[in-house]
């Protein structure tokens, strides 16, 4: 048996591991709470996860390109806040919606320009953006939640699971079947070689961050549609940092590491599902936020360690 295992490629081993971990957790959840596997509950559970899912997909494309986006959570909240405020002012649906999305794209573009043109390392650029937006969001929108969600948005938000699935499928296709997708992976694997091969590394990089910003904003809009008001916690930690590091953790748990070019959207989806199952399990034990954090940290490190062993680093 171990001989067969050795003959499998590293990537296959990783895929198997992810599937096994997920199934193990999923089954355990069912054992502990039979109701977990009902359609009703599962639909709710998926819907609850969908926002993190979309953020994780945004994070995935950035990590595939060899970078990281620490500002996803901040764009998430900022976009939701702007949309809420604009809705309160105009009472319209489309204008605030589109404006929020454009804002996400714009912020992403700034990230991209910083990384591609000014050569600021992605960690620093997006961290700076995170810090910046954390402050800006509060100033612009204020500590008291202003505005609300348009009824149409509320309705739309109920279907965020479909949006997650749709985005997921879309990006799997982009990753496999478009020159853009292939370029992103090569840049993540070896930017110099990509440049030498004729790929416009700068342009693709900026586009990647713009996409991340767009998706983060989208997730933020769904959040608004669910929360009805742009809830902004008074402590910074709730303000986007949590969401961001959760999205990074989901991607890492799913197996897309910083090695560059490896992994992918399918993996992230599983990473998100594993994270979600973990959350559910912990809640079943009646434990709270602290347990989630500790478990997430331990699981993250444990699984990354195993991945690294598989890839023989």
């Amino acid at each position, binding site marked *: 048996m171990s001989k067969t295992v050795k003959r499998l490629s590293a990537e296959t081993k990783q895929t198997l591991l992810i599937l096994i971990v997920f199934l193990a957790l999923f089954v355990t959840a069912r054992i502990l709470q039979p109701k977990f596997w009902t359609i009703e509950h599962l639909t709710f559970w998926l819907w609850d996860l969908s926002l993190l899912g979309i953020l994780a997909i945004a994070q995935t494309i950035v990590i595939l390109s060899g970078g990281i986006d620490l500002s996803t959570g901040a764009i998430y909240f900022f976009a939701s806040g702007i949309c809420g405020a604009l809705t309160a002012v105009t009472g319209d649906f489309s204008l605030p919606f589109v404006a929020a999305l454009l804002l996400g794209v714009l912020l992403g573009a700034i990230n991209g320009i910083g990384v591609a043109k000014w050569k600021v390392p992605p960690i620093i650029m997006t961290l700076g953006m995170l810090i*910046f937006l954390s402050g800006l969001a509060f100033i612009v929108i204020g500590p008291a939640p202003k505005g609300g969600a348009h009824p149409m948005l509320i309705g739309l938000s109920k279907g965020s699971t479909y949006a997650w699935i749709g985005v997921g499928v879309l990006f799997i296709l982009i990753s496999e079947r478009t020159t853009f997708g292939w370029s992103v992976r090569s840049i993540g694997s070896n930017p110099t070689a990509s440049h030498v091969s004729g790929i416009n590394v700068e342009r693709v990089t900026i586009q990647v961050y713009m996409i991340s910003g767009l998706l983060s904003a989208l997730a933020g809009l769904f959040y608004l549609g669910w929360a009805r008001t742009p809830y902004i916690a008074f402590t910074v930690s709730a303000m986007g940092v949590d969401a961001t590091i959760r999205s990074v953790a989901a991607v890492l748990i799913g197996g897309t590491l910083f090695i560059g070019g490896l992994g992918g959207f399918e993996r992230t989806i599983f990473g998100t599902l594993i994270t979600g199952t973990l959350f559910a399990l912990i809640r079943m034990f009646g434990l709270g936020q602290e*347990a989630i*954090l500790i478990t*997430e940290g331990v699981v993250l490190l444990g699984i990354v360690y195993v991945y690294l062993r598989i890839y023989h680093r």
Partner: protein
Amino acid sequence: MNFYGLTSKRNSASKSRVGKRRATSGQRPTEMLKNWYVWIILGLFWAFCITFTKEFQSIYTYRSILLLAVPIVFAALGETVVIISGGFDLSVGVVVSAATAIASVTMGINPVLGMVLVLVFGLAVGAINGLGVVKAKIDSFIMTLGTMFAVNGLALVIRPTPGGYIDPAFSRLMLYTVYDFPITTFILFLAIGVTGVLLLQRKNFGREVFAVGGDKEKARRTGINVDRIEFLAYVISGVSSAIGGLILAGQINTGDAEIGLPYLFNAFVAVVLGGTLAGVGGFLQVIPAVLLMASIRSLIRFLEMSTWYDFVVKGAFLIAVVAIQQRIAKRGS
């Protein structure tokens, strides 16, 4: 040792760089600027503030700046050492919070015990980070991200809501002033500043940290125990941040599991502003950077602007500083 004449050809055509070979008098100003620019920026900032605000003309302002700066500078020391060694430490913020949490719980039993436990905790987190990076070969970003999660959770278990008991004598000591001069704070700041600078610049260990960050493989070839250096860097970070948290607990007289994040931000921005990169930099420039961070915070408070402007400014600042540093580096090559 007897050596014999060997001249490196100094006057051949290609040596347009002869001038650069020595620190000629023309070179001195640029060199000085490179090593002291943060102090200059701090000076200019204070000059600006003194001119335009009442508050910066009062001694109380500088006292509160110093108070703010102390925990940051401890966290910044750890981050500086780690970054110079070539890594990242995301966990400094949560170690600070957890330290306050642990203090608030254990000091009730015995204040000294509490302090010792905090130090042990910092050591433990640092050691775990170090092992993960050195032995398990996990990228420092991922490793410290993981510990960040876990320690954050741990802190919340210990201290779910802010509160707890900090030994009053300890608190008084932390806030002790003599004729309005915050003497403990000053001594602590001075002590860590001097220790940090000396450790990095004037100790074998410090030089080796620079070597490892400069080129890990070449350092290994020279016989340096790279693993030991990296491990110690993370341990120093853990202990230093824990001490910072302990001091903070004394200042605010509570334990708070969520208080650490701004310390990560401020420490990080200060370290980057101080010109710290893998293999280059030093604590000497980080010290004024920390003071600058604290000063900006104070200024914003005085202008009665929302504290969130603090973040706006620092976020933009971080990006701008690095972009400029990259520009300069490019032009130099």
